[in-house]
């Protein structure tokens, strides 16, 4: 089981403290929502987790190992990051084919993930002409290429249309139900209430609250109380 663990992670950029001694767990078989105001340090934490940013202190692990030590990482973790991009001159299919080749995955995966995210019709269009939602779908397709057992998603619903939102919600629920791990950062609290099993709220780089989404008082009130 691939649970995600963030253990006393700190990260400073010059004088900016982006993440400050942050610890939390995202267990397998659950959707963990990662919430916090703009600039709270969510993206930085996820980048530390994925080995893209070196933490100033602490460690983040996936299934017990730091990302940089996973063999064939795409087969363990799929990631959608806030600002990962695509070469505008490449088609969606070529982008996926390049990632698939580098990761040593089966050729059939490209068509499968394009179908899965509903992008098959645009497979041979250059990504330079893609809409925001189409890019988001392509990023999701890339994350799914290796059939990972954990997904790390930074605002993946950004730009998705209602059909896309519903698909993503259903997909993540079923995916977690199968024993996989989802760590998702988002600002859409109504979505969180519908799919999250765990909520982690950070503000100014520090943990403010973690637990199941509260019944009763409502997530928004809780969020405003602890993060505001």
């Amino acid at each position, binding site marked *: 089981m691939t649970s995600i663990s963030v253990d006393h992670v700190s990260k400073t950029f010059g004088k900016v403290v982006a993440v400050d001694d942050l610890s939390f767990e995202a267990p397998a078989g659950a959707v963990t929502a990662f919430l916090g105001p703009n600039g709270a340090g969510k*993206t930085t934490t996820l980048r530390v987790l994925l080995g893209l940013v070196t933490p100033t202190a602490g460690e983040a692990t996936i299934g017990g190992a730091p990302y940089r030590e996973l063999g064939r990482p795409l087969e363990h973790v799929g990631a959608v*990051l806030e600002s990962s991009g695509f070469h*505008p001159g490449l088609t969606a299919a070529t982008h996926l084919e*390049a990632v698939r080749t580098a*990761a040593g995955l089966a050729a059939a995966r490209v068509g499968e993930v394009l179908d899965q995210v509903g992008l098959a019709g645009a497979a041979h269009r250059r990504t330079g002409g893609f809409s925001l939602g189409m890019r988001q779908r392509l990023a999701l397709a890339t994350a799914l290429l290796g059939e990972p057992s954990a997904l790390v998603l930074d605002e993946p619903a950004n730009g998705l249309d209602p059909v896309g939102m519903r698909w993503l919600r259903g997909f993540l629920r079923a995916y977690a139900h199968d024993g996989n791990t989802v760590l998702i950062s988002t600002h859409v609290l109504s979505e969180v209430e519908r799919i999250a099993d765990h909520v982690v709220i950070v503000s100014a780089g520090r943990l403010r609250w973690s637990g199941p989404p509260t019944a009763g008082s409502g997530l928004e009130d809780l969020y405003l109380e602890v993060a505001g």
Partner: protein
Amino acid sequence: MNRLVRAELIKARASRATIALGAVAPVFCASWVVLQVIVPAASDADRVANVYNMAQQAYVFTMILGILGMAGEFRHRTITWSFLVTPRRGPVLAAKLIAYGLAGLVIAVLSAAATLVAGLVLLPANGHPALTSGVPAVLAGAVLSTTLYAPLGVALAVLVGSRVVAVVLAALLFMYGDGLLAWLAPEVFRWLPTGAARALGGMRAEGGALLPAWGGGLLFAGYVAVTALAARLLTLRRDVT
């Protein structure tokens, strides 16, 4: 490793910049041949050497190819995918250097072929001998030096980070700066990257003599290796945000 090189080649081949640079470089070299055929030369041997030397002019294109191939990854934020697939960054950079070395080789060979054809047609047409025994070495050296400029471009782009700055810097360093130094201090020029690369391509300098081709080749390869090493140290440490 092999997988990573193949992935880089897929991206390079699909990019319009690669195709455009590969198409323009041979035409550019052949145009320089036209000029070298008609300008005065000290001797027939000199003229023939100058003509086939133009195969080296493709270096601008392979260097820009390397710069665009690497800087594009930063600009379009695709480097994130590369590092997600391969968190150990050394192999990612090595694959880039090798893939663009191969792409550069293709452009270098096409350019040398265009230069050769242009020379074989235009030299006799203007009443000059078409070939000398030194020509194969000149063309081979030109192919090697032109090829090496592609990984040099990749490494430069890593060090500089920005596409525009890298292209401007490369132009200043390798097209004008070295030329100016060659003029100001001819005896230093042979030790500079451009002097070394020209020597590899069999060029005879007007001022101070260049190194022998093999010496120039080794020196230029050394410059490329040092730049690549610096790039590797930097990529390994830099945060990707």
